[in-house]
């Protein structure tokens, strides 16, 4: 296992006597895309604000590449590129002039600016004023400023906001590439669950200021003991149904579209099949419907 690049340690935030973030602890590793999920008001943005030092933590700390964001802010944040909520830039300046502003603060060269502008595909509009930009273009510019100084950690709050489907796909591919090829840890928060499912390697679910779950995306969706809906194309259908109800009284059984639908886990699929074959039922097909992240997310957060 790689060494964690971001360590969140019992992070807490109290605002006006109310505990908004109730002690989050998790690690993020280089080369992974980490999804930060949660319903509105769960504390995602507050956590991100604490991770980049915009808001002070009431207790706990965020350690970035060994440096505490609380006590060694400049060193810690020099490894971070971020967009917090909207990519708000100076609208009366051009995209290029905006990047120049940030470049001066992190000592990035002009050739680095050109490189990054090309990377986010803004060459044609970079000398226009930002007020003429669409939201999608502002997101790209936001990404450009976040990457200017070769960060090891990229934090993006709702990055797909305002992007069209092609833009979302491009961003997704690009983030995955950044993680794989440059070993950057990418932290993405979003409400768009289907997007997160495609984008992330690991997810953390926050709810009411608590971390409900941190898990590998695949394990989370199709964990070993997860029941999935399995459809058996069998003949004769009524015989199969009767046998199954007798043999597996605890399973949910239904008939849908001329198929026998069962809620069972992985191991049980082969059990059910061999049982059916032994009882003279012919099987023409077995389909197991994977749960989406959305299904699992709702399961977890509604507990």
């Amino acid at each position, binding site marked *: 296992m790689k060494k964690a690049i971001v360590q969140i340690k019992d992070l807490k935030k109290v605002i006006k006597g109310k505990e908004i973030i109730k002690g989050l602890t998790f690690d993020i590793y280089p080369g992974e895309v980490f999804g930060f999920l949660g319903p509105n008001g769960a504390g995602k943005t507050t956590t991100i*604000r604490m991770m980049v030092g915009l808001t002070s933590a009431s207790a706990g700390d965020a350690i970035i590449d060994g440096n505490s964001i609380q006590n060694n*802010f*400049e*060193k810690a*944040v020099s490894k971070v590129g971020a967009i917090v909520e909207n990519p*708000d*830039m100076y609208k009366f300046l051009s995209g290029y*002039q905006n990047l120049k502003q940030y470049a001066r*603060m*992190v000592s990035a060269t002009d050739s680095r600016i050109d490189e990054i502008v090309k990377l986010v595909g803004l060459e044609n509009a970079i000398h226009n004023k930002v007020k003429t930009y669409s939201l999608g273009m502002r997101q790209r510019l936001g990404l450009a400023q976040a990457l200017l100084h070769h960060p090891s950690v990229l934090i993006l709050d709702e990055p797909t906001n305002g992007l069209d489907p092609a833009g979302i796909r491009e961003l997704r591919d690009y983030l995955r590439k950044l993680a794989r090829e440059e070993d950057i840890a990418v932290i993405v928060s979003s409400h768009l669950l289907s997007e997160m499912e495609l984008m992330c390697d690991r997810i953390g679910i926050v709810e009411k200021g608590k971390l409900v779950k941190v898990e590998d995306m695949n394990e989370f969706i199709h964990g070993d003991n997860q029941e999935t809906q399995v459809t058996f194309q069998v003949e004769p259908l009524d015989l199969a149904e009767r046998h199954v109800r007798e043999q597996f009284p605890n399973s949910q059984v239904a008939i849908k579209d001329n198929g026998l639908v069962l809620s069972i886990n992985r191991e049980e699929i082969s059990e059910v099949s061999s049982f059916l074959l032994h009882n003279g039922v012919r099987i023409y097909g077995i389909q197991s419907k994977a749960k989406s992240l959305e299904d699992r997310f709702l399961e977890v957060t509604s507990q």
Partner: protein
Amino acid sequence: MFFKLIHNENIKTSFRLSTWIMMGLLVVFVLLSTFFGGYKQPADGQADLQKGIKKNTAILNEKDVDEDTKATAQKEIAKSEYLLANNIKPYTIHTYLNDGQGMIIFFGAFFGIIIAANSVASEFSTGTIKLLLIRPIHRLKILLSKYVSALFSTAFLLLLGVLLSLIAGGLLLGFEGITASHAVMQGDHMVKETFLYTWGKSFLLSLILPFFVITFTFMISTVFRSNGLAIGLSMAAYFGGNIATVFLLKYTWVKYTPFIHMEYLASEESLIKGMTTSFSSIVLGAYFLLFLAIAMITFKKRDVAI
């Protein structure tokens, strides 16, 4: 790094529309007052002085004139006689530059207040503060660069006004008067002084008030993150500070209020007795440090949640 931050702030200021409007207004007002102010260099200054003495002597001999007018006439006579005796030529450009000084300073103050009010508050209102504060730079450095840049921009505008006045005035009334000597009242007698020195000194001393108010504006802008409030309170302080002081004269603690000291340092005149330059400097210095400290502490501790 600090200079780069100031450079960044200067760029932002230079791209704001209000900056160009203020500069344009300053240029227009200086030129208007130069060419429509009725200033004219007399053909024979000495003869005019003689005429002035005669006119003022006549006033002194009149019966219905009040004491104040007589005192002014007396002063004028003394001054004219001193100029004649020392062979000092009167120049209209002196009157012109003295008249214009207040206007330039007013524009400088107004401009500085707008910049200082915007520099922190607008970063919050547009959300740009977030991307500014997640750089590897200490927050106080960012705040101070904004303050220094606001002062720098104000100084730039003042310099523009001064140069424009000197050039426009010089073209209209001749340049030689600028560096010529003139007579200054010192205590109860006249002394000879280079005009540019006298004028420059009074200009700089008059800048204490704008400097103070701009610092105040900057503090309000940082604490309340509202440029409207900062501009409003600062304009009230700029125009109303001295008036408010008058109402406080009956209290002993009036000597710890700021405006009375700025008035004293700029004009050496004061509504209360026992003022000294060092005491006034200490009181104003304390206010200045207090404003900056409040701005720095709130900015440092602020949770950015926009």
